[in-house]
C-alpha cells in the first residue's frame, strides 16, 4: 500500500438492474491534493464516490481509502472521511446547533460543545445558531454541510457536487476554503460538472457513461487529445457552427454567444477549412488555446452521447 495515496481504487464496477453504471474505474488521489471528478449528470460520479466510502458494495474491483479496504473496513473509512452528499442531507427541522451537535455525538467527539461552538463561529453563524436549517438559503446550507462534514476532522473529504445550485460568489468562497483545507494536508475529491471548477483542481478525472476517459493534470489531459482550437468572431455564428459540424476535419464546434470555438485534430487542415468558410464574411478567426472544456466536450462526443439518466 502506498501511504502517499489517500484514495487508491482499481477496477471499480457497479451495475444497477443490469445497467453498468460504473465500468472498471481506477483512481489515485494523493494526500493533500484536490482531485476534480468531472462528468455530465448520470455518468457514474455519485456511484463511484459511494463505493469509495462504503455506502455501496462494488460488484468488482478493490481499493483503499486512507489505507482502509473499501470492502471490509467501511466502518473505519466512515470514521475518518467527511462525505458531503449531492442532495443536502442534514435535518431541516433541526437548528444549526442541533445538527452539528448530532454529528459531533455520532463521531463520539471528546469536547463536543466546544467543537460545535467553534464550527458555528467559523461559519460566522453565531447569531443564527438556533435558526432552523430549513430556513437557510442554498449557499448557507452548503457551507453548513461542509462545516458538518469537517467537524470530526477528517483526513479526506469526498464532496459530491457541492456547488450545484450555488451562486458564483459563494462558489468562489467555497473553492478558496477547499484550497485552505488542502494546504493543511486534507485530501479532497470533489465532483462537479462545472468546467471552470476543473481549473481549480490539482488533478482531474473525467468520467462518461461509467467509463473513465481522462485522468491527470489539466495540461496533461489537454495535451493528450492533441486538439487545435480556433476562435471565430462575427455574426451568424450558429449557421456557421451548423455547417462546420458537418465538415470533415472539424471535430467539434462550441458556441459561446459572440464567439465560436472550433477544434480539430489536424491543425493545417482545420485552418484551411476555417479560412475557406469565413472568406468573404465579416467573421474574424484567431488561433486559441484549447481549454479543458473543449477537451471534455470532445471526449464526450467521441465516446458517443447517450441518453442522460439521472444518477
Amino acid at each position, binding site marked *: 500500500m502506498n501511504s502517499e495515496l489517500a484514495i487508491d481504487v482499481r477496477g471499480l464496477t457497479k451495475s444497477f438492474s443490469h445497467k453498468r453504471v460504473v465500468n472498471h474505474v481506477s483512481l489515485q488521489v494523493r494526500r493533500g491534493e484536490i482531485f476534480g471528478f468531472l462528468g455530465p449528470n448520470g455518468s457514474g460520479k455519485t456511484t463511484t464516490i459511494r463505493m469509495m466510502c462504503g*455506502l*455501496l*458494495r462494488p460488484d468488482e474491483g478493490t481499493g483503499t481509502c486512507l489505507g482502509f479496504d473499501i470492502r471490509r473496513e467501511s466502518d473505519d473509512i*466512515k*470514521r475518518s472521511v467527511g*462525505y458531503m452528499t449531492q442532495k443536502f*442531507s442534514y*435535518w431541516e427541522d433541526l437548528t444549526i446547533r442541533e445538527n452539528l451537535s448530532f*454529528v459531533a455525538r*455520532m463521531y463520539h467527539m471528546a469536547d463536543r460543545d466546544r467543537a460545535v461552538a467553534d464550527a458555528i463561529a467559523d461559519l460566522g453563524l453565531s447569531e443564527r445558531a438556533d435558526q432552523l436549517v430549513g430556513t437557510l438559503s442554498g449557499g448557507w446550507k452548503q457551507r453548513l454541510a461542509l462545516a458538518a462534514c469537517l467537524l470530526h476532522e477528517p483526513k479526506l473529504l469526498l464532496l459530491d457536487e457541492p456547488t450545484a445550485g450555488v451562486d458564483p460568489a459563494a462558489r468562489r468562497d467555497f473553492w478558496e476554503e477547499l484550497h485552505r483545507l488542502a494546504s493543511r494536508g486534507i485530501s479532497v475529491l470533489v465532483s462537479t460538472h462545472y468546467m471552470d471548477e476543473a481549473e481549480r483542481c490539482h488533478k482531474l478525472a473525467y468520467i462518461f457513461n461509467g467509463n473513465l476517459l481522462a485522468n491527470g493534470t489539466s495540461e496533461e489531459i489537454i495535451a493528450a487529445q492533441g486538439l487545435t482550437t480556433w476562435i471565430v468572431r462575427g455574426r451568424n455564428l450558429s449557421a456557421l457552427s451548423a455547417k462546420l459540424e458537418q465538415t470533415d476535419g472539424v471535430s467539434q464546434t462550441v458556441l459561446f454567444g459572440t464567439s465560436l470555438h472550433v477544434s480539430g485534430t489536424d491543425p493545417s487542415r482545420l485552418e484551411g477549412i476555417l479560412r475557406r468558410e469565413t472568406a468573404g464574411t465579416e467573421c474574424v478567426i484567431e488561433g486559441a488555446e484549447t481549454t479543458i472544456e473543449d477537451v471534455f466536450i470532445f471526449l464526450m462526443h467521441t465516446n458517443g452521447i447517450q441518453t442522460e439518466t439521472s444518477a
Partner: protein
Amino acid sequence: MMPFSRAGFSRLWSMVIKEFLQLKRDRLTFAMIVMIPVMQLILFGYAINSDPKHMPTGLLVSDHSEITRTIIQTLEHSDYFDIKGEFADEESARRALEQGDVQFVVNIPAGFTRSLLRGERPALLIEADATDPTATGLALAAVSQIGEYVMRKDLHGPLSYLNSAAPPFEARVHRMYNPESNTHYNIVPGLMGVILTMMMILMTGLAITRERERGTMENLLAMPVTPLEVLTGKIVPYILIGLLQASIILGASHLLFRVPLFGSLVTLYVVSLVFIAANLMVGITISSLARSQLQAMQMTFFFFLPNILLSGFMFPFRGMPVWAQHIGNLLPLTHFNRMIRGIVLKGSGFSSLWPETWPILLFMAVMMLIAVRFYRRTLD
C-alpha cells in the same frame, strides 16, 4: 355560461390522463384501489357476523336425568352453544371462563330434576363471559326459549301437569365481568389496542422512511453508526410515546367512561409494553420495505384494516368463520384485546395471560427477522 370552454375541457382532459398515467406507475396505490374493496367485501361479507353462534360452552352438571339431558341437547341444537365438556368443579369452570376458553358455563344444580317435578320452578344457572355484550346477547336471548322446547318434548303424558303457561324452570343468567352489559366496558379497553396499533406503526414507519425520502438516510449511513443503533434509537422514543398514549387512554376510559380496573396496573403496563414493541417491529418492517412516506402509510392501512375487523374489536371474534379466526389469531391486536379485557374486566393475572402473550412474542420475532433481512445497510 359554460363551466368549461373548449380549451378548458382539453386541459381538464389532459389532467385526467396524467393522473391515470401516474396511478398506473404507482403500483402500490394501484394495488390498493383493487385490493381494499376486495378485502372489505370478503371481510364484511364472509368473516363478520354479528350473530355469533357455536360458542364454546362448559357444563357443570350435578344432576343427571332425562330432563337435564334434554335441556343440554336443546342448548346444543339452538346452534348458539357448542358443548365442550363437563367441568370437575366450580373452580376449574371459573378459570376456563376467565381465560376465555369457554364463553358460557351451564350449571345444573343438584336436585334440579326432583325440584322441577315438584313444580318448584328450579333455576338453571348460566354464567356468561359478558365482556363483549354483543357476542353473548343473542345467545342469552335464545336461552329463554329452551324451557318451552323442553316442555313440549319431555313434559307430556303424566307429566303434562307441569305444562302450564309459565316455564317449568327458570334460566337464570349471570353476566360475569360486565353485569350491566355496558358496551363501553368492551369498546374502550379495545380502543387502546387499536389506537396503539395505528399510532405505533404509523409513527415508526414514517420516522425511517422520512429519512430516506429527505435524503438524510444517506448521511446517516455515511456516519459511523450501526443499523442496530439507528433502529434502536428510532424505537426508544416511540416506546415512551406508546406508554404515554396507553396511560392517556386508560385514564380517560376510567374518568370519562367509568371503566373499572380489576387487574393490576403493573400487569397492564407490562402487557402494553410487549404489544407496543410488537407494533413497533411492524412499523420498522414497513419502513424497510416502503420507499416513501406515502407507501409507508398505505402499507400501514393495509395492515390496519384486518386488525380492526378481525381482532374481535369491532365484531365478536367467535362470530367469524374458522378461517377468519385463524387470520385473526395471527394479529397481535387480537391477543392484546383479550388480554386487556381480561386485566381490566376480569382481573386476570400473568399466569392466565400467557396463552395470549406468546403469540405476540412470536409475531414480534418473525417481524424482526423480516425487518433485519430487508434493512438496507448500504444504498444498494
